[in-house]
């Protein structure tokens, strides 16, 4: 066994974590290696010093439990800001969904563009829808009737255009 290996094993030996066979081989090495034997003695002394730092009766300062109860009462309650923050976090997505639904409803509920009939257009223009028709029917010559129908058609298209405006 070399010293590097022995050094690792010595740390386990002082913790009582070495198997009997390995411990025996280490003991053989310690008999012939003063350096490793000194290491073992130092580790044991260090452990003794460390155990000297133990405070077996170490207790917290007086009224520990009472003080802790008081802190638990105050500090385990959520603060006002925490409550607001939690509600705010929940409220934002809810608000967005509601807003989207309202926008959708408003969009769908918008009335479609009203298409006015020819007669309604004439009525809005305070004209009788029957006046032109009667003039057409009263025309004697077929050419005059056709021309009047043609112009009436053009007029009606103009009226539709104006009605849209």
């Amino acid at each position, binding site marked *: 066994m070399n*010293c590097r290996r022995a*050094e*690792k094993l010595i*740390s*386990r030996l002082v*913790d009582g*974590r070495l198997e009997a066979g390995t411990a025996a081989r280490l003991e053989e090495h310690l008999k012939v290696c003063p*350096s*490793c034997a*000194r*290491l073992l*003695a*130092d*580790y044991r*002394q*260090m*452990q003794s*010093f*460390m*155990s*000297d*730092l*133990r*405070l077996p009766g*170490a*207790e*917290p*300062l007086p009224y*520990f*439990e009472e*003080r*802790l*109860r008081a*802190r*638990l009462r105050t*500090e*385990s309650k959520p603060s006002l800001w925490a409550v607001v923050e939690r509600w705010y976090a929940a409220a934002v997505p809810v608000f967005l969904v509601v807003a989207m639904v309202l926008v959708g409803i408003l969009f769908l509920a918008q009335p479609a563009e009203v298409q006015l009939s020819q007669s309604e257009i004439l009525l809005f223009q305070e004209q009788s829808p029957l006046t032109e028709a009667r003039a057409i029917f009263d025309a004697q010559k077929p050419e005059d009737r056709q021309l009047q129908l043609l112009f009436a058609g053009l007029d009606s298209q103009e009226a539709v255009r104006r009605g849209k405006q």
Partner: protein
Amino acid sequence: MDDNQAVRLAQQGDQEAFAMLVKAYQNKVFGLAVNVVHNRETADDLTQEIFLKAYLSLSRFRFESEFGTWLYQIAINHIRDYLRKHKREKNDLRLDDIPEPGLPEAEASLQMAEQQEAERRRRLLRQKLEEMPEKYRLILTLRDIQGLSYEEIGKILKLSPGTVDSRLHRARRLLRKKLAPVLSQGGGQS
């Protein structure tokens, strides 16, 4: 009532059940804290904060480990945070600063000289431990002062037993170098 029963009741809001757990573990947690920070007031504050943290995260305890191990994990993490935040501060009132009750003049004897020597050694050891990297200081505290097993240390620090073994080995080698002047065999030379 065992720990798990108390934890279940505490999770349901039973304050008395949590008080039982506090009573059972307060000295252990305080002992750990005082051995790391070496100041009773600071250790007391840390212990309060550790139990407060444990209470607030009790709902996350899933009974996958023992309650004591889980509490030690919280304690170690909290103490680590404290050490990192107060790395440069050396103004704490130390245990050494608390005057020991004096012995009568007549008893100022060999016993007193031995006590003074032991106190000097403890003071030096605490100082040397404080100079060590946090990971070595914690593992030495858990093993050599708190007396925890490798398995318990592994669970608390979330290390494999092999890593616990090698880290302890490195920590001891470093501490031996630092304590060379007081080790009777003249350690730290090899």
